[in-house]
């Protein structure tokens, strides 16, 4: 066996990007879920939930692959802790997406007409946050090419700055939506309000984890 061929470990960045893409496929189903909910199509919701579950499972498998490629003896160009945390945040995004779909399946909740627009606004904003993260993360391979520095790295740092702002916008929309929900406390029953709150909290967590993942990415870049 040649020493040179042993010297090279497998780079974890390829599978890492695969994982990001798979996680984002989960997130992409939030909007169809929301649409199905607004049409009160509960069969469709169940189907979508199954798809989210499957995607989440697939993402988990990729995660294990990446973990498997990170033995202690591997000397990485980025901080190992950052990389592992990045993976964990991504994993949580998929988990929370699945939670969201579960919430919609456990009770046939109706969305109050006053809330529909803002709910969609929130969902779109969440998509904006995770989308920004995806764009940044997909560039990881290019980044490895330029050894995490130079113009490419600066460009991605700029995107990541934008990520924080998008998350803040999502937070604001969520607060606004909460206020609207409590205005309806005499029209809608308490259980439904609890469900609305659950939905908002889960969506907020997705945005939060996306922001955290972005921070980890930043950590990798500026090591």
């Amino acid at each position, binding site marked *: *066996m*040649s*020493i*040179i*061929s*042993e*010297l*090279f*470990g*497998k*780079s*974890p*960045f*390829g599978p890492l990007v695969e994982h990001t893409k798979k996680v984002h496929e989960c997130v992409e189903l939030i909007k169809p879920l929301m649409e199905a909910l607004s049409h009160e199509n509960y069969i469709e919701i169940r189907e979508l939930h199954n798809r989210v579950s499957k995607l989440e499972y697939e993402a988990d498998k990729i995660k294990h692959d990446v973990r498997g*490629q990170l033995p202690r*003896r*591997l*000397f*990485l*160009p*980025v901080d190992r802790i950052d990389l592992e945390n990045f993976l964990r945040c991504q994993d949580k995004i998929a988990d929370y997406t699945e939670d969201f779909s579960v919430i919609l399946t456990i009770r046939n909740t109706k969305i109050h007409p006053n809330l529909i627009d803002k709910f969609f606004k929130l969902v779109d904003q969440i998509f904006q946050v995770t989308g920004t993260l995806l764009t940044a993360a997909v*560039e990881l391979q*290019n980044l*490895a*090419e*330029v*050894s*995490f*520095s*130079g*113009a*490419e*790295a600066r*460009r991605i740092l700029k995107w990541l700055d934008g990520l924080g702002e998008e998350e803040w916008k999502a937070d604001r929309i969520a607060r606004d939506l909460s206020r609207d929900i409590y205005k309806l406390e005499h029209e809608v029953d308490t259980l439904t309000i609890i469900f609305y709150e659950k939905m908002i909290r889960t969506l907020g967590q997705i945005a939060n984890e996306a922001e955290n993942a972005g921070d980890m990415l930043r950590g990798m870049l500026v*090591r």
Partner: protein
Amino acid sequence: METFVIEIAALLGLYMAWNIGANDVANSMADAVGSKSISVTQAVVLAGICEFAGAVLAGAPVTDTVRKGIVDPNTFLTLTGLTHPQAAALFVIGMTSALLAAAIWLNVASIMGMPVSTTHSIVGAVAGFGIVAAGWQSVQWHKMAMIVASWFVSPIAGGFMAYLLFKFINHSILGRDRPTRAAIKYAPYLVSAVTATVVLATIYKGLKHIIGNVKWFTPEVSVIITVALSIATGMMSRFLIRRRLEGKDTLPVGEQLEMVEQVFVPIVIITSCSVAFAHGANDVANAIGPLAGIVKVIQSGTVVHKVGVPFWVLALGGAGIVMGLATFGYKVMQTVGTDITEITPSRGVAADLAATATVLICTRLKLPISTTHTLVGAILGIGLARGLGGINKSVTNKIFGAWFITVPVAAVLCMFLFLTGKMYFFDYLTAICTK
């Protein structure tokens, strides 16, 4: 009788050369194959040609009878109570044992996947023979110290050089806003540097034995040749690179990076070939040096310092290396070519160039360093510059382990073989050497 002994020695020399080919040669092409610049088959053919050419054209026509002068041949002649034919017989047994010991150790190391320097093996074996045959004082310990120093010097120097080179490539070309435009501007300088290193390495390391006999080939002339060739290739490459990359700077950065990497493909092939050529020129001596010594001593009946190497011996060494490459090195290259996706042509150029330059400089400083170890150090250096996706740290431990045990193991093995050989063949060989 005489030819029979020579035939046995030739077989051992071939076995040693086979091991060198199997163990070491694949490494010289690793960067080119790993970056997918050439296919495995192409690499085997290219490495075979370059190694054979290096061994036959540039392999030492004159060699020390004792590898690297680690043992002083005079001590055998001055040993009390030994006649010249007896000293010659001892020497022949010793060199044969050394050849066999080094080859066996290399073979075992190859099977166990240990990165072992062929030079260190043969030097260790010869030292072992010197110790049992003529005592501790016969070994040139200061030369041994230089070899120990090289364990640290070669990877560190190679790593440092590769780190700087890759940082330069990254800073001036890959990390720019418009990599293609930067490549047109800076890559020709790199081509000039590669040319200078390759030409100097070929002159001083590859062709030094041939050039030594040519009167007009003074150091000044070689410097002039080097500079002229560097400027010429630099200008030529600027023209070629511009034709390929001009106007491509509006494409997305990812695509531009890919195109720039394509520019490095021919460069990494050339540098890999020069590593293979230099390797052939240097390491073939590990197999044929002792063989040439044995042949000469058997024929003349006395111990000499330096011997001419007959052409058939050089060709034998070259053929052995190519055989090793074809039978075993092929597999190694396949592993490199299919499992490594991380190295890109630009990294390959940085590693090869750093290794060649380090070997060149250290050879000029008369430091014995190992090509393989320098290359490993260079690749680690690129890893430190964050240039590689992942590097297996445990390999470095393995390398250190192999360094430390090679010399003693080869020495002990050779002592054992020498004492056995002396017991059975001493009288027989003394008779042959009595003229």
